[in-house]
């Protein structure tokens, strides 16, 4: 634990403060999910995989026309579903990725891209 915090303190991320006058192109370096020290959960889903699986779940929903499904489609506006269907789709996504999405977050998931973002950023997605 102490070693980890010591190493993290040593690796400092350069803070990017670009004001209107200066615009030095700084090298992009970020401590993203690629560098996770001592993490036992190293098998993280790629965005491709998340997108594919989310689209599969949405396409296999009986009321949905599969040809209309794109990664940006809105469930109620584009696919003509209602809020009950929305809840069902979120439940189906929970089952596919073995997640428990709390109610407040689940209410916000209205469209495919929101679902993909949420699942991709969830550490326990499997």
């Amino acid at each position, binding site marked *: 634990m102490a070693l980890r915090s010591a190493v993290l303190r040593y690796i400092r991320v350069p803070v990017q403060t670009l004001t209107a006058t200066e615009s030095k192109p700084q090298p992009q370096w970020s401590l993203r999910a690629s560098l996770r020290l001592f993490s036992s959960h190293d098998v993280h889903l790629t965005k491709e995989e998340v997108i594919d699986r989310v689209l599969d779940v949405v396409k296999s929903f009986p009321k949905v026309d599969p040809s209309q499904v794109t990664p940006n489609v809105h469930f109620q506006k584009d696919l003509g579903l209602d809020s009950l269907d929305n809840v069902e789709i979120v*439940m189906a996504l929970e089952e596919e990725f073995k997640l428990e999405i709390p109610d407040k977050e689940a209410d916000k998931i209205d469209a495919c891209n929101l679902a993909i973002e949420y699942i991709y950023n969830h550490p326990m997605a499997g």
Partner: protein
Amino acid sequence: MAASGVAAPTRAEVLQLYRSLLRVARQFCDYNVREYTKRRTIDAFRDKKNLTDPSQLFAAFSDGKAQLEVAKRQAIVYSLYAPKVKSIMDIKPS
């Protein structure tokens, strides 16, 4: 008949009840009961989707809450006596 002072459930409460019922359905270990609970919830909510009368909405909502309690208890009871052999529908093809 004037509506008494019962408060009709809000949209958010209805959706929350829907989600709770679907979640409790997942807890059943018996495939048949699990699928029945899901089907019954979906059918009941769709039937009553267009109700507008506050007293009817309140009655349907409290009915749903009572069923949720029943389902929660039954999920626990079923798990106490879970059969050792899983239903064929639960076995994923390898």
